[in-house]
């Protein structure tokens, strides 16, 4: 992690695309992620059925031409719920990653730029958060502030901070030893300016890659929290909650357990492939590994 591979140059968008279409992981990942995102966005304007619309007499219908993926125990349309669930999952994961990045990267970069106690304190604090198992942190957090999507976002976000801070710290430390940083210093630039002009832009690639990975991890943790009833709350549908509700009905309505599970698997798979692809594209040194 300490070795930062500087890209040959700033990739122009064109170069990037040229490399991207030849990368299998990226292409498959981008298609899957794009599809999930599209479904999530589409759910804002259209879903086959209103997700809050209950139809108790029409409950637990197997997949059919009207309800493509069947209906749940309240007679709600599973496909519509999955679409809106995608939106909720993605929202939680995006906010959580943003919190992690927005706080972690500056902290890590600042710790690398300044030495001594300040950096020690920051990195120790990071180690400290790291010692709390993520889910435990989230459970405690929601136990205090009550279960809700927003609290899930914050809890996952807090757990993301040290991930990004460590990465940014390691990356920045390596960059600070680069000769172009020494050049910048002889040009009279201070640590803040160097961090903004030279360090952060060069950390971007690894941050994007890590962001994608944390994003998929965020979706998994959100699903886990919702499964435990600590994440997104009704009436908002969420994949994890759908799974936990389906659990007792697996005997007679297995489709209720299978589709949300598949939705999670597909989304996480797509994001991971995308992340791998991006890493290959940004960092040709690693390409052979894929």
């Amino acid at each position, binding site marked *: 992690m300490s070795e930062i591979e500087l890209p040959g140059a700033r990739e122009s968008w064109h170069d990037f695309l040229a490399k991207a279409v030849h990368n299998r992981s990226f292409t498959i990942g981008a298609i899957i992620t794009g599809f999930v995102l599209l479904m999530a966005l589409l759910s804002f304007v259209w879903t086959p059925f209103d997700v809050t619309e209950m139809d108790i007499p029409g409950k637990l219908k197997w997949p059919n031409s009207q309800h493509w993926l069947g209906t749940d125990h309240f007679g709600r349309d599973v496909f519509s719920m999955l679409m809106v669930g995608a939106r909720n999952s993605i929202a939680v994961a995006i906010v959580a990653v943003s919190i992690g990045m927005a706080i972690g990267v500056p902290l890590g970069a600042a710790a690398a730029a300044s030495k001594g106690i300040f950096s020690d304190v920051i990195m120790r604090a990071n180690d400290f958060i790291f010692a*709390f*198992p993520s889910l435990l942190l989230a459970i405690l957090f929601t136990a*205090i502030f009550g279960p809700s999507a927003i609290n899930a976002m914050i809890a996952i976000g807090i757990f993301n901070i040290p991930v990004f801070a460590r990465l940014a710290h390691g990356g920045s430390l390596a960059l600070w030893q680069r000769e172009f940083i020494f050049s910048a210093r002889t040009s009279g630039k201070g640590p803040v300016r160097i961090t903004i002009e030279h360090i952060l832009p060069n950390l971007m690639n690894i941050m994007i890659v890590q962001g994608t990975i944390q994003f998929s991890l965020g979706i998994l943790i959100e699903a886990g929290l919702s499964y435990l009833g600590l994440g997104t709350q009704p009436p908002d549908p969420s994949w994890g909650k759908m*799974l936990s509700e389906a659990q007792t009905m697996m005997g007679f309505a297995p489709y209720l357990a299978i589709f949300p*599970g598949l939705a999670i698997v597909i989304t996480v798979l797509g994001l991971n492939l995308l992340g791998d692809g991006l890493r290959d594209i940004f960092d040709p040194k690693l390409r052979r590994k894929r």
Partner: protein
Amino acid sequence: MLTTLFFLRRTGFAAITLLIASVVIFGITQVLPGDPAELILGINAQEDTLAALREQMGLNAPVWQQYMHWIGGIITGDFGKSYTYSVPVSELIGARLWISLPLAIMSLLLSTAIAIPVGVLAASRHNKATDVSIMGATQLGIAIPNFWFAMLLVMIFAIKLRWVPAGGFAGWENGIFNGFKSLLLPAIALALPQASILARIMRSALLDVLAEDYMRTARAKGLPRSMVLWRHGVRNAFIPVLTIMGLQFSFLIAGTIIIENIFYLPGLGRLIFQAITQRDLIVLQGLVLLLVGLVIFINLLVDIAYSIVDPRIKGAFHE
């Protein structure tokens, strides 16, 4: 000599971290909404009854005194007495540790046993069909949420085939075999994503090592490819794998919390939930501290394991 110094320093850091953790954990439990006394006595309890119980539980003392009392006890091995169960916390935790710990170890062993050979195989068949399919399979393994996988396992092996119990713990006293049987499905459910991640790390670490100059030196000696792979490759590749295994321990604990709930194993994970819902703060504090301590301890262990695998680590402290 240097190793002792290194060891002492790392242990010191770990101890300080743990101490700060105890303050934070205690603080967190103090702000948890809900009064344990009310929960025990229920909604019809009268105010004087509640006061009597609060006094009995020591909830009326100032917060810092409660903390000092708690931490002082822990240092002497006394974790306090559970509010709800009225038994020593250490007894509660001790009993459940015998489920969670074997579970964690089983899944760790299982995932390592699967991941290492699979990772080595993929690396040695780099970019060939074997490699590509292993990578695909592990990619899938990472994406499957362990609780969903657990649900499917229960569905197939416990409910349909009835090979193993659907959940619960038979108890070690009914034979070690029965105990393992209860832990098998949970361990598999936990091990799958871990194994997938480890296999990938093993593979990429080995590929890194395969590109090292010393692998060429070894080949130039005339050693066949497979011999070079195992003798020179695997041990070096183990260093990053070890790091990930250390980090994963934390995920493993998180995983056990969910998995124990699915298989209703009376382990530490379920105890946490129970302690939260019952506001059994003293159990919660002790338990979270124990888990955090475990993570810190494992990372300490990983650091020490480094210096065994990699002789350079000891030397690194010269520079």
